[in-house]
């Protein structure tokens, strides 16, 4: 499984390099998802199976879906259709597909060999993590829940204002709101 670590590390570094050099947001997002999946493989080889599962579910799943939603929301306009046809070309998805295939190959190899035990000094079981979470780290868990609540309220607040602003702009033109109108007139290049 040492080889699995090195291959996944190479995939992670390559895909992260691609993330910060791509010009198209969706291309970068595809590479970012592959990078997160590679880090999940690395977690698994380090004996942290619970963290690996959470990486796939929360990071590569939930957070990336948020990114996809917002990027799709942002791509409104006449050039969107041109981009759409460009995205469907082979060039846009072949890179992430190859890197993801490497990770799938690793998964198949590990399952075929039947060695699901991680070679770490001592794999940390989910039970241990749970006991630590709700034992000495209980206050941290409560604080994390408060943080998530604050994030939710903040995102809702920002999103609601945004929707109301659009309505207001549609109703009686722009420029009659304090800070928002200021920005619109100032830096609309």
């Amino acid at each position, binding site marked *: 499984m040492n080889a699995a670590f090195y291959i996944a590390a190479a995939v992670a570094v390559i895909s992260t390099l691609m993330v910060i050099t791509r010009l198209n947001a969706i291309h970068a997002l595809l590479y970012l998802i592959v990078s997160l999946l590679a880090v999940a493989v690395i977690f698994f080889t380090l004996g942290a199976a619970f963290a690996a599962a959470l990486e796939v579910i929360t*990071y590569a799943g939930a957070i990336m879906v948020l990114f996809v939603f917002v990027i799709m929301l942002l791509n409104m306009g006449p050039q969107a259709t041109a981009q759409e046809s460009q995205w469907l070309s082979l060039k846009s998805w072949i890179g992430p597909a190859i890197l993801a295939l490497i990770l799938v190959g690793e998964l198949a190899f590990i399952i075929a060999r039947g060695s699901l035990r991680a070679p770490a000094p001592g794999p940390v079981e989910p039970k241990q993590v749970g006991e630590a979470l709700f034992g000495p780290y209980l206050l941290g868990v409560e604080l994390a829940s408060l943080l998530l609540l604050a994030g939710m309220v903040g995102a809702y607040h*920002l999103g609601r204002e945004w929707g109301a602003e659009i309505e207001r702009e549609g109703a009686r033109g722009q420029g009659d709101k304090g800070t928002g109108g200021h920005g619109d007139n100032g830096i609309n290049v």
Partner: protein
Amino acid sequence: MMASIPMEYGLLLAGTLFALGLIGVLVRRNIVFILMSLEIMLNATGLAFVTAGARWAQADGQVMYLFILSMAAAEVAVGLALVLKLRSQFKTLDADAASRMHG
């Protein structure tokens, strides 16, 4: 049982990913890319924690990773809401467009 992976390699990988994310934040001016690079950096930090936790076979590394994960989720929710707001106000995704605060 094969030899385990040296901790240095895991930390080296975490450092590399963090540096790549930092370069992304510094180089890109599109605010969506800046947010993505922030995700990379947070992820690299979590990797460092998990690596250290695996080295001593303690659960604390994964607990800290969980905290980082929840923080990243909250940050992304607020950050993406701000991206939408920036877009609706300035009609651009350039982070420099919002460099002036009209207090």
